[in-house]
């Protein structure tokens, strides 16, 4: 294999059978490829090291389940996409919830009454498709920066959509609160 970047099925099979040298050879070939891909997705950030490491860890754990060694690419792709999604959802680096949900929980987490639930259903119907998409993506965990990238907007415009949604819903929500 020396001098060749390719990872053939025989090498994968050796690694699956517990040959540590074979697995290390696979890692040596995958590491720079993964690194280049993550850099192309998120830029040259410190988190790239962790993304590569965790992708390889997933591969190490999942390799015994790979029935067809020629399918290594799909297997590595799945691991890399899992990690990329974790990154988009703020699982790497500082959390975006700077204040933490706890700080406001006593105000926000009361069980809503029936009237509030009905208001909410009515309000949800009034959301524009774009505002709804943004709120859904945020609830899924995407950071605002990633929502902006995905929807081809500026981060400020994404946040503005959220604010506008609440201001628009305010009337439906019973004119209560606000400035």
């Amino acid at each position, binding site marked *: 294999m020396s*001098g060749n970047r390719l990872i053939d099925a025989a090498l994968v099979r050796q690694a699956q059978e517990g040959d540590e040298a074979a697995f290390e050879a696979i890692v040596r070939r995958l590491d720079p490829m993964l690194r280049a891909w993550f850099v192309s997705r998120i830029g040259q950030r410190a988190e790239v090291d962790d993304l590569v490491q965790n992708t390889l860890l997933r591969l190490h754990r999942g390799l015994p389940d790979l029935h067809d060694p020629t399918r290594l690419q799909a297997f590595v792709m799945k691991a890399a996409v899992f990690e990329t*999604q974790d990154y988009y959802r703020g699982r790497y680096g500082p959390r975006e919830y700077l204040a933490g949900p706890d700080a406001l929980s006593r105000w926000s987490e009361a069980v809503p009454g029936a009237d509030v639930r009905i208001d909410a259903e009515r309000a949800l119907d009034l959301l524009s498709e774009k505002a709804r998409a943004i709120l859904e993506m945020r609830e899924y965990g995407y950071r605002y920066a990633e929502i902006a990238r995905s929807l081809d907007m500026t981060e400020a415009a994404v946040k503005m959509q959220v604010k506008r949604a609440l201001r628009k819903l305010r009337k439906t929500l019973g004119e209560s609160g*606000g400035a």
Partner: protein
Amino acid sequence: MPAPFEHIDAIALYRDLTPERAMELQDILASDPAAVALLRKWCAVRALLVREMGEAPADPEQFVLFVLHESGRAAALTDSERIRVEEVAPAFRQILADSPGIAALASDIRNDMQDFEAHWTAWFTEASVGEASASPRVSSSRAIRPVRRDRIPARPSRRVPAQAPSSRRRVLQAGIGAAAAAVIATLVFFLLPVSPDTVTVRTAVAEVRTVELPDGSSVRLLGDSRLTYATDAMVEDGQRRVEFEGRAFFDIVPRSERFLLVTPDAQVTVLGTSFGARTAGEGTEVVLVEGSLRLSGRRAPDKAVLLAPGQMSRMTSAGVPSRPVSIPVHEHLAWTGLFVFHATPVRDILPVLSAHYGVGISADETLLDERVTGRFAQEESLAGTLDIVALAIGAAVAPDKSESDGYRLASLR
């Protein structure tokens, strides 16, 4: 005093506030039952939204597996994953049809998959580059690293990964090209002789960093840029000297020593001033905001031009600077990530803010010719920026009654 709309905006982003803003909101909630009611209703709306998104937010990995499965990549799934996905697929398909955000997420995941596959193919079908290709590491550029010649380790010459073949997708080329360039840049950085006691700051592709220079000047360094200067007083031959390549906005403090900015094709001499410079494209381009500045080619330093505030000049292919022309500074410095206003009329500022934040902003007729000088980071909130603009021109920010969700600057005079 916060602008009138800040209160409700804080509730809208209640989970994403800085600690200071969250504390402000807590104070408001403690004294305003109506605000509490609105927050609870807003939470109820979002909770309902989550319920309608089914299992996708609760189990993101399952959702990724579903997207893999649905886009013809079932081979990536293990047997147990496939069985589970086939169970939940009908429900996920319905969610996908009903939820625009989930549909956008699926599209994002598919894009990453396709990009990864193209990247893999390009990487592993490219000509073999030897065993050493497996080990070069793209060093992080986040830390500012002083590099001294006597600390540079002896390194064997290594080959680096080849760039993607020309037939691949452009986006892929950009990715691999950037990575390979980073590796090459890193190696060059270590192997070439480096003057002792210099600091080189590099930014990654999407990174923006503010660098404080030893003389108190500051540089907003944009992505994929490089700045080199001497440590200590950074003074050489009676002048402050900085080497630069990329894109940056400079705030130079006035001192008796001239400030010399050297780019690959030009040199910029200033005393105290602020200006934007970028070296990408045809040649170094300089836009002056304040002070005065002299621009010349490195090969013909005697053929210089003097720039006044609001003027731009660019190095030509002949190696001399173009005649300075007056330009709208805020338009020509939009790439800095700043709103740069220099005696800019309010009538020109409002459309800029309106386009960036996606909301209508108007002003009383009497305010439109008022001029504003200042700089605002584009990532700042609209409320913060509008507040300062309003303060500068003696106005107040209010909801615009004639336009839904818009704002109006109303004169206080």
